[in-house]
């Protein structure tokens, strides 16, 4: 990699080029412009406001100089739109995996031939900016860059560097158009042919190719601070490596390996590395993955082809599309190019449905089965509410995104228009039900009134009961069928509750095991819970054991969390395992971790997030942030610089570590 470029970006020197764009919304409103006209006009204006700059030793250019993306609509107009439609998050398209492959191969001018008026204007706008970059390159004596820009993205790429530059420009354009969580997709699949051809021509060695991939990865970090999600770092630049193609052939190739190495060498939070594996994946691939885990970025996140593809097919995806699956911003499984799923549109709060049933029906339930029936009704009722709210979904039309998705109406839906619903706090829900089943109904050692009273008073007068429920009761994560079976039942019930429902775009609903930020938000919707969780204590992140559960070890966790029928709950949401970073100190240990991940896959787990952390370092970083500017931690589906997080999120990461295996 270029050290000069890395330092320049880390020191944020390019921020000096940044300017603020003026607001457009009032003008658009006055003129009564249509949404698509506004999007097109805004993109044209922003492209012309951008100023070409080259960073030191940069081979892949384009850097954002406009700080803000001014809104297309005024606040009043948004209020009106929200009255009329369901607006998801910011209202602009997000979490899509566009067709980079085709654009890189054919070029934008080929797309222009079949484009509509708005798409043409958008293509012209970005090519206009490319042209200004090219002229600046000539002026600054950078003939190599100028030559590449002469070719891409107007025309198809003819070399690896052109392909990378073409990607960089269209990805840049997607952000500038106002779309967000713009994922990267199967980079090793669509980019490898260019590298392979160049290597056959003798243009690269593995070493020089790695250096170029590193420079390319640096480009994801130039503007990423402008792509703010719930927190800094939550920007959705997820990249998927490995896995099988539609014919069942392994995709993992030299470029996949170089990507894993580049991420390890750079230690930056973008792009976010995912790795697809399956029962045929060789140990060496897992070893490469574990070496990256050791670096402490929370990469790679693993997905199991054997489970995910069948799960998607069962939901109605064509097998050849399912074989191409990637992850959305965090871990939601989506299909590139043709998919327009909204994979994070809602969330079911498992502990809350248990809490509802507890307060409404425990006293009147005679058996655990009676009570479980009430929980099932609550889940159905909650799904009624979640799905009932999702009417008339509307997205701001994005012409350039639609060029990238082979579909001029992507904002009205694609080939797949399914809605993903997260499931928060499965372990807390299952542990709570296990307490009710075991102590209230089977052993009858705790009375219904006693349990209700303890939960409602936050266990303040019942320290012995708290201890029993918190530390002696069976917990998910210890490979105890009694409680794990309840978790399986909860997920089955959730997916059954969504089955058969049609969403407002003609798609279906997908149940999932992720939590996103709901592990904090949802936890505040209820008080204490029957598993001994106190009021205000958060749930585990995504699909993981309750954070205070006394867990035997990673083998039991993996067993517990591979029991559910994931083919029925395949929206995504990884089991999260955290290891102390000292576990990775020698090669032998890295190999053992690799074998452990392989076991997880062979036992039928669907998705795994493995983190190497050190609590002492985190404590010191909270006290002395200035010393830890580059310290990275994993949050829920993305990695972030620890010191840039709100304290609430820092604290949760640290709380998780106290129970590190």
């Amino acid at each position, binding site marked *: 990699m270029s050290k000069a470029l890395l330092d320049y970006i880390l020191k944020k020197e390019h921020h000096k080029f940044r300017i603020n764009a003026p607001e457009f919304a009032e003008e658009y409103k006055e003129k009564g412009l249509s949404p698509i006209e506004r999007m097109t006009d805004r993109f044209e204006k922003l492209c012309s406001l951008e100023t070409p700059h080259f960073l030191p030793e940069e081979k892949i250019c384009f850097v954002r100089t406009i700080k803000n993306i001014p809104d297309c609509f005024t606040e009043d107009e948004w209020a009106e739109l929200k009255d009329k439609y369901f607006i998801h998050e910011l209202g602009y398209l997000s979490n899509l995996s566009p067709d980079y492959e085709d654009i890189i191969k054919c070029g934008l001018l080929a797309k222009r031939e079949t484009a509509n008026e708005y798409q043409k204007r958008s293509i012209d706008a970005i090519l206009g900016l490319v042209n200004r970059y090219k002229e600046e390159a000539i002026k600054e004596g950078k003939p190599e860059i100028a030559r590449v820009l002469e070719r891409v993205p107007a025309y198809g790429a003819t070399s690896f560097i052109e392909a990378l530059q073409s990607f960089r420009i269209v990805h840049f354009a997607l952000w500038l158009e106002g779309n967000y969580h713009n994922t990267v997709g199967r980079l090793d699949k669509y980019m490898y042919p260019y590298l392979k051809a160049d290597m056959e021509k003798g243009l690269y060695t593995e070493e020089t190719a790695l250096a170029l991939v590193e420079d390319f990865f640096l480009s994801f970090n130039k503007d990423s601070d402008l792509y703010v999600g719930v927190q800094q770092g939550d920007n959705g630049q997820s990249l998927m490596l490995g896995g099988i193609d539609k014919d069942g052939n392994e995709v993992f190739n030299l470029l996949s390996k170089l990507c894993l190495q580049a991420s390890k060498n750079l230690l930056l939070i973008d792009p976010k590395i995912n790795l697809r594996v399956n029962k045929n994946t060789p140990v060496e691939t897992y070893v490469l993955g574990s070496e990256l885990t050791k670096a402490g970025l929370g990469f790679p996140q693993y997905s199991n082809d054997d489970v995910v593809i069948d799960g998607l097919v069962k939901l109605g995806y064509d097998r050849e599309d399912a074989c191409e699956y990637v992850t959305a911003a965090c871990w939601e499984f989506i299909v590139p190019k043709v998919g327009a799923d909204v994979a994070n549109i809602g969330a079911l709060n498992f502990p809350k449905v248990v809490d509802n049933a507890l307060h409404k029906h425990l006293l009147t339930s005679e058996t655990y089965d009676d009570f479980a029936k009430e929980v099932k009704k609550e889940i159905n009722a909650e799904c009624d509410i979640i799905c009932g709210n999702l009417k008339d979904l509307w997205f701001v039309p994005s012409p350039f995104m639609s060029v990238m998705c082979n579909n001029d109406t992507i904002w009205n839906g694609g080939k797949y228009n399914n809605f993903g619903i997260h499931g928060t706090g499965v372990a807390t829900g299952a542990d709570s039900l296990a307490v009710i089943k075991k102590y209230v109904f089977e052993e009858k050692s705790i009375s219904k009134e006693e349990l209700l009273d303890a939960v409602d008073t936050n266990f303040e007068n019942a*320290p*012995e009961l*708290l*201890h*029993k429920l*918190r*530390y*002696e009761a069976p917990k998910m994560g210890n*490979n105890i069928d009694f409680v794990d079976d309840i978790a399986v039942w909860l997920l089955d019930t959730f997916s059954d509750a969504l089955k058969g429902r049609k969403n407002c775009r003609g798609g279906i609903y997908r149940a999932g095991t992720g939590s996103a930020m709901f592990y904090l938000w949802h936890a505040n919707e209820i008080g204490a819970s029957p598993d001994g969780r106190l009021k205000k204590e958060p749930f585990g992140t995504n699909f993981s054991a309750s954070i205070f559960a*006394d867990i*035997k*070890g*990673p*083998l*039991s966790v993996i067993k517990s969390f591979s029991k559910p029928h994931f083919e029925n709950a395949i929206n995504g949401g990884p089991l999260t395992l955290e290891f102390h970073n000292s*576990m990775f*100190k*020698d090669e*032998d*240990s890295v190999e*053992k971790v690799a*074998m*452990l991940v*392989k*076991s997880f896959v*062979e*036992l039928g787990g669907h998705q795994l997030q493995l983190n190497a952390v050190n609590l002492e370092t985190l404590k010191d970083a909270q006290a002395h942030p200035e010393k830890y500017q580059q310290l990275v931690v994993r949050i829920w589906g993305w990695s972030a610089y620890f010191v840039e997080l709100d304290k609430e999120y820092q604290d949760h990461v640290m709380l998780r570590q106290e129970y590190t*295996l």
Partner: protein
Amino acid sequence: MTGTVFDIKEFSLHDGPGGRVTVFLKGCPLRCKWCHNPEGLKKESQLLVKTAQCTNCGLCKKGCHHLECQPFGRCIKVCPKNLVRICGTEYEAKDLANKILEYSDFFELNNGGVTFSGGEPLLQHEFVKEVCSHLENVHKAIQTSGYADEEVFKSTIKCFDYVMMDIKIADREKHREFTGVYNDVILKNFQFLKNSGIPYIIRVPLIPDITDTEENLKGISKIVGTSPVELLSYNQMAGAKYESVGMQYSLTNDKNKEPDLSIFKNAILSK
């Protein structure tokens, strides 16, 4: 028959080949000054209190009526943070074997198995042998100080696929000074192990100024000859658990000296 176990650790990384589960047996005849498992020394169950996170709320000292708490004078069923625990669980051999067999699929997938450690597992040799008799298809390893009656040593290690045996100090008197026992029987047992045909490794803990001296390493090299040796770097956290069992750690937290591997014919160094 029953035995006392103080911990079962899943996925222990430095306890033998592949992915392993380690069973720690309670009780040890040695008193090595650097022991990092002080809770494994006494054969009987004992109270373990993690004092670092204690807020002194006093709940555990209020007195209770639980039978199991009576011997300890503290309530183990009330701490809001679960810091007051009993260390040492009694198992029927068959039950412990069944617990280990639950991991069979992992052992197979990770080319691993079970490791018996301690404490000194040979102190409960009858129990260990009985557990092993139920684990026919599991790869079994043992970590031992080698301090046991010769017949006990011979009959027990025969149950194992891999033996990790310590030779800590070559000099007889120094061995007694720092571990509480003479090393005569250990050296005899080593001779048996060497000729037993069972795969093994000799482990030498590097304790600053005690075992990591050139004199000691040369002495050990002379004893072990071409046997495979693993030198274990000093665990600077070795003293961490002493307070929780009401003991004091007497050694330093310094690093060991970088050993000269060429003293040995066949040694590796583990950090």
